[in-house]
Structures are given as C-alpha cells and as structure tokens.
C-alpha cells in the first residue's frame, strides 16, 4: 500500500499530515519525502541519516574529432540540449533529459555519455519503532526533479507494507513523478479561494492518472465554504478536517507532531488510515 500526499497549492499541510499519519500507525511504515526542492519532513520526524547517495543522470559529450556536424543529435533532441554551432557542437547538460537519443542516433559514435550529479538521496532511521525514512535533495542550480524523486521512491517498502509519500506541491512533472504508481492520493487543501483553485487542478491531475483519492481539509474554520461545496459537487470524500487551531500552529512552529501535544489526534489519524484503505479498495474495484 503506497499513499501519496499531495495538494496543488503549497503550504496546505501535506507534511503535517504525512508526519502525523506515519507516527500514528501501529505497523511498519516507510516515509519518503519526495518534495526534493525543499524537503522538510525531517524537521518533524528528526531522522538519523545513515546512508547518502548521489542521483546521477547521463549527459552527452561530443568527440569533435569523430563528429561530422551532421546535426542528427541536434534534431532528435526535444529539449534543445545540443546545438551544432559553426564548426563545433555545444551541449547544455542542464536542459538534457537523459533520454539517450543523441548517443543512439549518432552515425559516427561521436557521442558518449558522462555523468552529471542532480542531487542526493538520504535514508535513515527515525526514533520511532518500525519507521524508515528517505528523502531526496535536489542540488542548487539543477532543475531536473523527476529523476531525484524516482530515486527516492526506490526506497519504498515491500508491497505488503505501508509507504507514505510526501509529494511536492503543484501539478507538473515532479508531482506526477511522486504520485505515479501509488495506490491512493490524499489531497490536503485549505478552505480558501487559493486552496480551492489549486485543489481543482490537483483533482484533474489525479483523475487523469486514475488513482483513488480523498481530501483532508486543513485549517478548517478559516476561509469560506468553497472547498466543501466543490467536494460535494464532485463527490470527493472529505476524510478528515484539521481545525484552524493555535495549538497546532504552535506545535508545527517547533517541529513537533500534533499527536505529541494532543494525543487524541492519534486515533483520528488511525481512522484516516483505515478510511484510506477502505476507499482505495472501493475506488479500485469501481474502475
């Protein structure tokens, strides 16, 4: 069972939900922070990092002695990462998506692949029994996010066990990379016009991927009724509402879990998990 926690809008409470849900479960869980541009789950779970490895992408290097300036590499590249310029060839590693097309098409074998480091993936243990942790971190100046996310996801638990994925915000390639091949997407939103606007985009994305999903409304009580109305119209199950509560905000600001200061929430998060399992089965069967 893999649950991804996504949102559309940033700052709605994905990480809060991921951390508290993980810490509430009475069974082994693997938690993956896939928001590799700004991972922050570690601030709440305080893992001890035990392993660290680079995420590497192959990029082309042109041997100008073999190159005949035929431009086939330039023409096959959808991302304009290679240009034949006068009597030379320029490459732009930061634009390269590492598809290998240029290497394969070169009739002179003038293209070889060299390694470029995109970021790192760290794994560690959390001071809670049965919880394992991994996170990705994109290097400064890099923009190729999905390969880092895919590498983090290789640390998922075995299919029988539970994996929680803290996804990045938005609806573009990084989020798709995080949500893809998960069994359920938990969409965390806030009851504001901004939250609603981006929730709609996120729902469209999840529907396109055909993944069972449900809502958590965070900071319930602020804003307006727009999210509730939308959820009703679209038949989106609201699985949990976390109130707009100063005590929760205070705990968050100290890097503490809600369930530490308000243990009653542990049961609520356990119920959330059971509802997710139920819905995942139900929605999958309905498809």
């Amino acid at each position, binding site marked *: 069972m893999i649950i991804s926690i996504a949102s559309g809008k940033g700052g709605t409470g994905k990480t809060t939900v991921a951390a508290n849900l993980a810490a509430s479960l009475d069974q082994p869980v693997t938690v993956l922070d896939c928001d590799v541009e700004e991972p922050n789950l570690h601030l709440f779970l305080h893992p001890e990092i035990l392993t660290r490895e680079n995420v590497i992408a192959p990029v082309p290097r042109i041997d100008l002695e073999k190159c005949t300036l035929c431009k086939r590499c330039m023409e096959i590249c959808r*991302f*304009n*990462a290679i*240009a034949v*310029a*006068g009597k*030379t060839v320029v490459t*732009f590693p930061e*634009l390269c998506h590492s598809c290998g097309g240029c290497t394969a098409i070169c009739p002179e074998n003038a293209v070889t692949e060299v390694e470029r480091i995109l970021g790192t993936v760290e794994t560690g243990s959390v001071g809670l029994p049965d919880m394992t942790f991994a996170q990705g971190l994109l290097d400064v100046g890099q923009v190729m996010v999905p390969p880092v996310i895919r590498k983090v996801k290789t640390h998922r638990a075995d299919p029988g066990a539970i994996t929680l994925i803290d996804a990045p915000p938005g609806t573009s390639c990084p989020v798709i990379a995080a949500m893809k091949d998960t069994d359920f997407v938990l969409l965390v939103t806030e009851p504001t016009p901004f939250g609603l606007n981006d929730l709609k985009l996120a729902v469209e994305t999840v529907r396109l991927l055909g993944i069972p999903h449900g809502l958590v409304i965070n900071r319930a009580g602020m804003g307006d009724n727009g999210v509730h109305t939308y959820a009703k119209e679209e038949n989106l199950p609201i699985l949990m509402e976390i109130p707009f509560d100063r005590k929760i905000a205070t705990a968050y600001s100290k890097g503490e879990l809600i369930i530490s200061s308000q243990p009653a929430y542990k049961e609520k998060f356990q119920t959330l998990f059971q509802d997710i399992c139920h819905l995942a089965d139900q929605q999958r069967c309905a498809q």
Partner: protein
Amino acid sequence: MKIAITSTGRDLSAEVDPRFGRAAYILVVDTDTLDFDVIDNAENKNSFKGAGIQAGAAVSDKGATVLLTGFCGPNAFKTLDAAQIKVVNDVSGTVLSAVNRFKQGEYEFSAAPNTEGHW
C-alpha cells in the same frame, strides 16, 4: 559581411525585435548590398525551452558573423560564442537603421549575456 538582426517583420523597415530566441523573424543582411535572407522563427518562438540555442544555430547556418538584438540570454550567448558570432545587445529602432549604425561603427560588441535564462 553578413549580419543577423532580430526583427518584428520581414523587411528592413521593420522594428528590431528585442528578443533573440523568441524573435518573430531574424534577417540576415549583407552589409554591402543590403540583400537579405529571412529566418522565420515562428516554430522556435513557441518552443518550451532552448529557443535561444536553436536561434543561435540557425543564425550560424546562414553564415552571419555578427548578431544585433535587444536581449541575449546565457544559453544563446554560449551557442553564438561557440559559432564565433559576435553579439551586440540593447539594439533598437528599425532593422535598416541598426545596419547603418553598425556600418558606421557605433556599436560595441557585448562580452556577456544581458538577460537571465528562462526556466
């Protein structure tokens, strides 16, 4: 010599297009005869990324050795530099007036890109 000028239109009376990679057209003008070739940059104008790189390669293919434009980003500059094409940034007015000012030696070549890359 042949020089390339980014242009909003297909002839010498058009205004210089301030953008390089996403210019509407690029005119490649022979400074002696004022004969010119038109590069229609429409496809490139809407490319997701790397417009300046493609435009740089196209200008090089046409045999230009100088580019007059408004703004040139880092990837475009790198491509033009590799193709040994000199760049003049911050050019405005009509294409013809830019060609004349170039011929009179009023421009200085740029040593670096003058705008950020687009992500």
